[in-house]
């Protein structure tokens, strides 16, 4: 008889089967672990970058968004932004940045947990990490929109620069500035982690679906026999 916890955790592969085809059972673990490593590594890399180009800034100005901090010419860009009445960049996504490390740690732990779960619930555990890059972009868009549309009407250039939505990705133009926004290495790592998880789920299904099916079959059979006996 299986308890409800067993139903969530799912069956273990018999040892003789593992010895016979160890790759079959290790592949999901490998892909999930690679995803975890990539996710953690991504924390130390910038996810998104905005570059401003203007004649008086021959080296350009850039700001890099890590999940927990902003680096680069933030001060100078803030200084310029005050002319159009945009709030300082540090005011954006404060909650997200403060929770980001905890969030990525949680995603990573869920993936690790997913390794030990051999049922369809694995998908539930893996889903947040799969969606994570899209959530990042969505949040970034939310803040760009929020900042761009809420300009201080009393700013010096308020009559020249109307509220606008800065492009999330791509090239824009604002006064003498060309703005280039792009995702960077941290985002790529997080995206590759998503792909790894999806691939891992495929191998996971390949490895454990038969075991789950046979377990259900065995249970059904046992039930049938029980009924028949009665």
């Amino acid at each position, binding site marked *: 008889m299986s308890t409800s916890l067993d139903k969530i955790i799912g069956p273990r592969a018999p040892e003789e089967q593992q010895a016979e085809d160890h*790759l079959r059972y290790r592949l999901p673990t490998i892909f999930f672990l690679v995803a975890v490593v990539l996710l953690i590594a991504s924390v130390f890399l910038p996810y998104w970058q905005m570059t401003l180009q203007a004649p008086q800034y021959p080296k350009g100005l850039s700001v890099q968004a890590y999940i927990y901090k902003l680096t680069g010419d933030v*001060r100078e860009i803030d200084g310029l932004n005050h002319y159009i009445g945009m709030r300082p960049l540090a005011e954006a996504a404060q909650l997200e940045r403060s929770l980001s490390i905890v969030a990525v740690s949680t995603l990573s732990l869920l993936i690790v947990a997913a390794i030990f779960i051999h049922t369809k619930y694995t998908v539930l555990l893996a889903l947040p990490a799969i969606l994570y890059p899209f959530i990042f972009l969505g949040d970034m868009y939310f803040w760009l929109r929020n900042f761009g549309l809420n300009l201080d009407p009393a700013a010096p250039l308020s009559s020249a620069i109307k509220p606008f939505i800065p492009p999330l990705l791509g090239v824009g133009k604002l006064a003498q500035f060309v703005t280039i926004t792009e995702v960077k290495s941290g985002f*790529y790592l997080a995206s590759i982690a998503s792909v790894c998880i999806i691939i891992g789920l495929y191998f996971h299904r390949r490895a454990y679906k038969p075991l789950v099916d046979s377990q259900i079959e065995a249970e059904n059979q046992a039930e049938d026999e029980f009924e028949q006996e009665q």
Partner: protein
Amino acid sequence: MNLRDLKKYILPFTLMAIIGFLIIAACGGAGGTTEAPESVPVSGDINEIAAARGLTPADVEAAVKTYTPTGMIDEYVMFSSGGHSGQLLVIGMPSMRLLKVVGVFTPEPWQGWGYGAKTTMEVLDEGKVDGEDVLWGDTHHPALSETEGEYDGEWVFINDKANARIAVIDLRDFETKQIVKNPIAVNDHGGTMVTPDTEWIIEGGQYAAPLGWEYASLEDYESEYRGMVTFWKFDRESGRIQYDQSFAMELPPYWQDLCDAGKLVSDGWVFCNSFNTEMATGGVESGNPPFEAGASQRDMDYMHIINFDKAIEVANAGQTEMVADFPVIPMQTAIDEGLLYFAPEPKSPHGVDISPGGEYMVVSGKLDPHVTTYSFEKVQAAIEAGGFETDDYGIPILAFDDVVESQVEVGLGPLHTQFGPDGYAYTSLFLEPAVARWTLGGPYEDLNEDPPWSLVTKTFVHYNVGHIAAAEGDTVSPDGKYLVSLNKWAIDRFKNVGPLLPQNFQLIDIGQPGTTMPLLYDMPIGIGEPHYAQIIKADKLEPWEVYPEIGWNPGTQSPDPNATMTGEERIERDGNNVDIYMTAVRSHFTPEHVEIKQGDHVTWHITNVERAYDATHGFSLPGYNINVSIEPGETASFEFDATHDGVFSYYCSEFCSALHLEMVGYMLVEP
């Protein structure tokens, strides 16, 4: 193994490889490729343009060698004395574009040098002479700091001939940090020169006078008047001359002129030339020969040879006398301790320059057509041999023939010598006027095709050359390439701008051997009469783009206790004392209203909180004679008594942004 098994094993590894590749691609970023510039054939139009402007092929060649298109950085930087402007000129080469006029002895409004800012007022105050402001200087000889005899691009020093002062300029921000007044001399000439590791700065005197600003009749010239050389100890750590560790040496009342520190083989020795060993005292109005004749009677004057290492020991041992509270090694001590020797030098010389390896001292007697080269080795042998004649003061004189290596006849009025990397020496000829190229011998003999110790060629200059400066031409490893002739007269070289004419810096190409030494370019100097210049490879200079931290004090080169960050701006009042803590950023000062009362004593601190390259703000307070330049990161402070009531608009005096005119505030002084 069947195909299915194979796939099963290969697939994971293939996937891993793809992922690895993606990671590398994601982390690697885009590597730029640099393209070699293509040489573009010159179109026929160039000839038409040259013909229309009356340019010869040589002119076009010179133009191509010097023209510096926008954005191209000069290969060399020349630090030139600003003459009686009292400033230091910074000039890019070969473009000969003026990059900066560094405020030194004279107030300079653009840099806010001497118009309120405390760090500038304090330095100018150090330059007071007998308690009085002297707000100009006759700057003569800049000296770049050296490490092992090479320019290191960290400091530059310059003297004020008129008032015997030395200034220290920090090349991290190109600002003057210290002025030292020589307490024993009214004026000087033979400064500044540095020892090979810049431990000492040499300041030679000029017109003899009683040491320590005393009175003595000219009747007592020989007994009471004295020459001197002062050795200033420089400390790199603090960036200051250490007054307490410095000392001078008493010399006979000959007019010491220029000095140079020995290097490499002659390290530890100092050489100075002198004139007026006749000890003429002038008085043309009383029927005496004028100085110009009286001081030019003898065929030989004396090169001073100073055992400097030993002089330091003697000074440290306390064998000094205090003159105006400054330690001076008495002449007799210098004689007794073997610190000072003379070698005859022809005639009324104006320069002693040490060859790159330190083996030779080159002297030009300006009334003798030769450059005379002395061998350091021979000087040492002669000192060793002993048995000297002495002058009237008992100073040993080495025999001319014992110490001279060679004499080369270069032309009329030879003055100053610089060196190239290829065994060539260059000497300015004031009277011809020209720059002579001649060859050194000895270890330099094989560096070029020309015979040693001979004149190679001359390039005529316009006009009346004084000093010359070759690229790193007085270091242990001269660069050659360029030489600048610092001409005193311009006459017809530029459009007449009235009877006071600019000086003329002429750039000469010394990059080719033999007789090829063409003139390239003229640069007028309409600010004073520069004397000497030094030329450093531009990439050795690594000044700050902005001050290292917000709230930086350029005087101490450290964070300023009155630094004010954004959000900390305030006005504090304590009785009649008002302290203002202000920030400046494009395009506003905070606060914009300052309300005080007549009679208040105001101390005002402004921090430029910008971090952008070139985002300097000025602060002008008309009515109170305040003008301050606040570079990015700098905290500037000034104070004044609010003596006049009224309304004063303070404003940014450096065009900083599109809303620069709006960068303004009101100071309201209530009666």
